[in-house]
């Protein structure tokens, strides 16, 4: 059964990294409902993407491993539902205002 998951991906902040992440999801036909991508403010060589996706348990687990297979990706983790996503979104908005 499909449901919402928040996918958190920590990665190098390099060209094309977001494309690589999105490619893994689109190949598996995982729907992206919302997305936040950010550069680490303390270290510009690192970045993160937080995605609100709609898929099944089985697929999110497989996608996690396929994302971690990307050379630039340090880790991928997922959480049930959208709470984690909105917390990340709030944090990102505050940082933008501060800048």
């Amino acid at each position, binding site marked *: 059964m499909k449901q919402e998951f928040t996918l958190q991906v920590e990665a190098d902040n390099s060209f*094309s990294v977001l494309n690589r992440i999105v490619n893994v999801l689109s190949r598996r036909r995982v729907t992206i409902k919302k997305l936040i991508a950010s550069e680490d403010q303390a270290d510009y060589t690192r970045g993160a993407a937080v995605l609100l996706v709609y898929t099944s348990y089985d697929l999110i*687990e497989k996608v996690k491993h*396929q994302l*971690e*297979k990307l*050379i630039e990706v340090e880790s991928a983790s997922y959480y049930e539902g959208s709470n984690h996503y909105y917390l990340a979104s709030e944090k990102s908005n505050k940082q933008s205002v501060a800048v």
Partner: protein
Amino acid sequence: MDALLTKNDKQAESDKQFRGQISGSEILLRCLIAEGTEIIFGYPGGAIMPVYDALYGYSDKLKHILVRHEQGAIHAAQGFTRATGRPGVVLATSGPGATNLVTGLADALIDSTPLVCITGQVFAHLLGTDAFQETDVVNTTIPVTKWNVQVTEAKDIAAAVAKAFFIATTGRPGPVLIDITKNAQNELITELPYKKCEHIRTYSPKPQLQLTNIKTAAQLINTAERPYILAGQGVLLSGATQELLKFAEKTDIPVACTLLGLGAFPTDHPNYVGFLGMHGNYGPNVNTNECDVLIAIGMRFDDRVTGNVTRYAKQAKIIHIDIDKAEINKIIHTTVAIHADAREALEALEIRCDKSDHEDWIASFRTFNRIEYERVTHKEFNPTGKITMAEVINQLSIQTNGEAVVVSDVGQHQMITSRYYRFKNPRTQITSGGAGTMGFALPAAMGAKLGRPEKQVVAVIGDGGYQMTVQELGTIMQYKIPVKIVVLNNSFLGMVRQWQQLFHKKRYSFTEMANPDFLKIADAYSIQARRVENRDALQSAIQEMLGVSEPYFLEVVVGKEDNVFPMVPAGGCVSDVLLELPTTHD
């Protein structure tokens, strides 16, 4: 070299040396040499010209093979790599030069083949402007590379090359691509000592062996009555053939090989029970649904191996050893997952597994395989009509003692080669497995021969696939690469026709081919050639082919509508394997 330079060239050279600077192109070549590269397969063009210009001065250290199409370059590099274990290197220009590599990249990615491909790109200031021969190569090749990068400054070339070789050759190997803009190739900078890459923060190619999982697996194996090993290419890639042999002999477990795993276990060993998959041997397929513990090593449960997964080895406990974590539980749910290098895992398992005897279980494979011999193989080897593909491969296997490097293309002849050539040694079976790329074999055989010149290298190809990359005969002619080419000609796209016969009521929709005179084509390239249509001439023709020290082309006209059996029908499970044409479809 100096004699070929004009006065101005000489002046320019000395100016550069005076300043102690070299071009990005020269840095690239020096990096390749530092990584042990001796041979490059490539094709020049506008955006890679500075590299080719630099290559002119390095021809004593880097042998460049000028192919006739970039697809030929990458398949040749694949053949070189699969035969030698060393990463293949490819050079191509921007735009169509780079996009012509895409098929080979996809092929190398799915078949875990380490390649380093370098493409030229337009000047950095023209990126995104639709300049002449500009294609977004990085984004085009993301899905078909293990890693890729664009370099726009000469100072970044060395680090990119070091990273490329590290990524291509470690963990689960794969192809990488470096796209270098022309300004970076031309730019003069001070060269720094080359530093090999040994660590990337976000990349952990070598998993830590989990001994608890090894112990659990060993317990399962020690108590199993019908354990069964499926050996994939991971065994070859990790150099674990001896470890597999030792483990299988101690535990007396039967071993079957996947298509790319052929050569990982000697076919003349008493524990070897056959080839797996849609057209694999009868016993290995049927007994997959009879075993109680299935030990899958360095294989990824491809759908051509599993058939219908909902009915695949449901009765068995599954132990899956793989270096790629994403492969574990991807297709088949495992009981014990061993995320590890195959060699390390086998060493650890062998120590913890008891000496055992599974004579009756192994005998059950032999019983099934005898049935297959009587109903399929015997007929294939002793036909009454036209020459069969099986006869040709059997004769080739006998005359080469199973020791040649055999490069097959894709289709019926590929399955027949995998079934009837009795591979004895690692890295002697080269074929396009996961991608199923027609046109692979001819260039791949060139690369294999250049990598292993001491070996007899035979390309076995169908008449369809042969015409997809036939232009590489020019490369074979120019460099006098003594590959032996066997075309099994049935004037059909045979495997598609077989499916049309079985599943589409014999509606042969666009699969019959009117072919050219292949001997005349070979003759145009000064390649000795012979056609065999009668069985009486087959043995001597193969003998003649193997006896010459030059390239040789042998066309064998085979039965037009012969089929490959056994066959797991589409949608069927491994134990549904058919030994002959179902009567309802006759």
